[in-house]
């Protein structure tokens, strides 16, 4: 019984990594940037193997109007090789950390001609089977407001304000109720000690509180009586 279990677990452990072998590359989906600014295009990967010393990163660029992609960056054998002849010469810098699986590049001084698709392909020998990932770069004169940001913030602010008002209202009611409760408790509690003294001390507060309450009670009684008369 135990041997069968051990065999089964070994077989499963043997099967599972093989099915999940393969490198998964992550870049962004779309990046927006202003003309003249710098942008960091990130690329990282997931692999079941340890990061090998022969890990390679390569970036290629396909302009919006072009049909083919050109290679603009390659990292291999521990050294980065940046574009020195193409559209990004002197504008490309390697800012990644291959030891930490980061193959990001920095593009400087962007122009409208840099609109296009950047593809990152990473290989971690012996884990080489994987799909390259692409990120689209959009260069704007003025960064547009994303759809729904203003909408969401207006709705959130108004509903938050409503919630705040409701909370404050119930808190004030709770405070007033507690104050009334404290007054009534202390009034009953000090009856034994001496009515006049306690009443004198609590006189001002009761007189402020009482007349309005008495008036409210009287008006309620009047309303109820008038309704009873009407009926």
């Amino acid at each position, binding site marked *: 019984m135990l041997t069968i279990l051990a065999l089964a677990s070994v077989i499963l452990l043997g099967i599972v990594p093989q099915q999940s072998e393969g490198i998964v590359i992550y870049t962004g989906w779309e990046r927006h940037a202003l003309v003249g600014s710098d942008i960091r295009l990130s690329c990282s990967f997931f692999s079941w193997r340890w990061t090998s010393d022969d890990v390679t990163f390569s970036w290629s660029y396909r302009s919006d109007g072009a049909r083919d992609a050109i290679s603009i960056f390659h990292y291999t054998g521990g050294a980065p090789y940046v574009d020195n002849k193409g559209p990004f010469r002197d504008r490309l810098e390697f800012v990644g950390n291959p030891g930490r699986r980061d193959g990001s590049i920095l593009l400087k001084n962007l122009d409208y001609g840099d609109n296009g698709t950047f593809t990152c392909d990473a290989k971690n020998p012996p884990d080489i089977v994987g799909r390259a990932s692409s990120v689209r770069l959009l260069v704007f004169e003025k960064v*547009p*407001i994303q*759809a*729904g*940001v*203003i*909408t*969401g913030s*207006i*709705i959130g602010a*108004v*509903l938050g304000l409503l919630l705040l008002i409701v909370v404050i209202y119930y808190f004030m009611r709770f405070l007033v109720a507690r104050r009334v409760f404290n007054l009534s408790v202390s009034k009953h509690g000090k009856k034994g000690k001496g009515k006049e003294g306690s009443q004198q001390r609590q006189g001002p507060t009761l007189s402020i509180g009482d007349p309005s309450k008495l008036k409210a009670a009287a008006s*309620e009684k009047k*309303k*109820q009586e008038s*309704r009873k008369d009407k009926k």
Partner: protein
Amino acid sequence: MLVLLAGIFLLHLTSIILLLVATIDNAWWMTKTMSTDVWARWILTNGTWSSNDLPSYYPQEYLQAVQASSILACIFSSLGLFVFVGQLFTLSKGQRFTFSGIFQLIACLCIMIAASIYTDIFHKKELDGWYGHSFILAWISFAFTFISSIIYFVLRKKTAN
């Protein structure tokens, strides 16, 4: 008394429905081949309607303000309905339905803001085209929510629970 209550409830419900239609349906401005609004633009090509994005020259801040305030009007009106039903059971005799009235008034304010911004900013120079049913329903629901809130402010609870 019950008839009055049913009528008021129905008025509130109608205003919610009108607000929802005005907010959700993309028909604030229409032409023969286009029905556009605060969310998307429907264009009629070869006998079929297809959904497109709104043009990018729309001023984004005003568009999103219209979206936000029409949604807020729907939210406040719906909350007001629940507040009204709750107040029916918790109010003591002789008291007014102030909270329900306040919610309906805020909804009225919000849809007025939405419709006013839309009227003043969008489609001012386009001559061919007319205001669609969502726009008209937005203004009608403004009137309904206003009347509804006035009724709530004036109404007093007659029967005790």
